[in-house]
């Protein structure tokens, strides 16, 4: 991968825009569809992903020189699972309502390709501190896309933003008929496709710098 993601700022730009895990690397799509109909749940999922990705990348980078080649991915999964289950345990004990609403999606973070992707592509070949940062910025890239989708899905599907009523729905004596499709996963597909289209247009408008094509090809697919 080009060295433009080894500095703190370079890494931030890379993971939030140039190589955004969702709209460039196309990773972590499953949870994008499932939780984004509610902004509070989305935000909590994003915080969980930032925490899990950063700490697992940091830990893996710390022990990378000791991991035998044959069990590399197994060890990575153990580390990732550890941090995700910690999140699940904390939510279940101290935020039980959130835990019930997010349900299985917290545990499914373990299977989110972004975490394994960053572990393989970055933490295995970089120092612990920058790996931690890479986890944070990857999580931020994920957050940026998910919150954008969630704004539209919650607003059009429920008439609320963060649970606060913005468009008065008919049931509450207002004028707005909620768009039920926004509550179901297919709407997230449409929004995601729309976001990718807009973003690629913006990216391709810039004079063709080599890095745009190459990093995507070296994308973090294990």
């Amino acid at each position: 991968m080009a060295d433009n993601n080894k500095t703190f700022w370079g890494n931030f730009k890379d993971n939030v825009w140039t190589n955004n895990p969702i709209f460039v690397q196309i990773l972590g799509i499953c949870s994008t569809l499932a939780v984004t109909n509610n902004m509070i749940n989305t935000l909590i999922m994003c915080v969980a992903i930032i925490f899990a990705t950063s700490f697992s990348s940091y830990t893996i980078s710390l022990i990378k020189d000791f991991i035998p080649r044959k069990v590399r991915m197994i060890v990575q999964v153990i580390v990732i699972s550890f941090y995700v289950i910690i999140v699940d345990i904390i939510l279940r004990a101290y935020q039980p309502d959130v835990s019930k609403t997010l349900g299985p999606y917290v545990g499914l973070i373990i299977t989110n390709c972004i975490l394994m992707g960053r572990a393989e592509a970055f933490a295995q070949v970089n120092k612990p501190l920058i790996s931690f940062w890479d986890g944070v910025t990857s999580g931020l890239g994920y957050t940026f896309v998910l919150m954008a989708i969630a704004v539209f899905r919650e607003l059009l599907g429920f008439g609320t933003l963060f649970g606060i009523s913005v468009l008065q729905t008919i049931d509450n004596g207002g004028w707005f008929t909620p768009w039920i499709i926004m509550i179901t996963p297919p709407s997230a597909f449409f929004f995601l496709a729309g976001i990718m289209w807009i973003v690629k247009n913006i990216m391709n408008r810039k004079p063709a710098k080599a890095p745009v094509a190459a990093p995507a090809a070296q994308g973090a697919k294990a």
Partner: protein
Amino acid sequence: MRDSIKNGIVYTVIFSFLVSFVFVILLALANEATLPQVEINRKIADNASILNALQIPLEQKGYSQAVAQEIDQKFAQFQVQAHYFKEIKNPATKAVTGYTHVAPEDGAKMKADKDPTLVIVYSAQKNDQVTYAKPFVGFGLWGSIPGVIAFNQDLTRTAGLEIYPGRHSETPGLGARMEEKWFKDQLIGEALNNGFIKVAKPGEGSAPADPKNKDDGIVDGITGATLTSKGLEKAFSDEYAAMKKLMEVMQNGR
């Protein structure tokens, strides 16, 4: 570390074992540390739902010690008591044919063992009347719907409904709207027509539902969630039938 050692079988096995051991131990410790709080959360959620169904509102929200104390205080104030029963099943058809009363200590043990034949009914004293609250499990479109349904003293009307948020799989914005206040409020004081409350499809021609009319035995269903609505309709009549039998056992058995 020298590659030959690192990739040898002995080191690989020892390393894998150590890594698994360390992380699993840490997780087990974290789990043990939070177990008491999880248990408190569950108790509060269950008891708060009983009080909600009985229309005994809690002033505080959340899962803190203060809420647990308020629940205990309300249970004492309204003399909320649990009555335990065991299902009697026809061995051939496995259908439930009746119930026997079970002493509190045995009932508590059955609850701890998660005995599936245990049935609990709560009674409360409100305004010189006894109100009953019965936890139930209905079936919606995507899965089971655990909730609590309350009945008045002579089982002529329902006294309230509570659906446990997050314990069902109905679609948000559709079936999950059964958690909303407007839906649950319809079950407060609604008359039972021969033990049946119709959950009407909104706009159904022959039986328009007037939520303010508590004597017609009809409540509004949820738009776009016919199966969830019908699942609840069945749950209400099933629970009424069960309550009739349980009341007989309560009056005769005790």
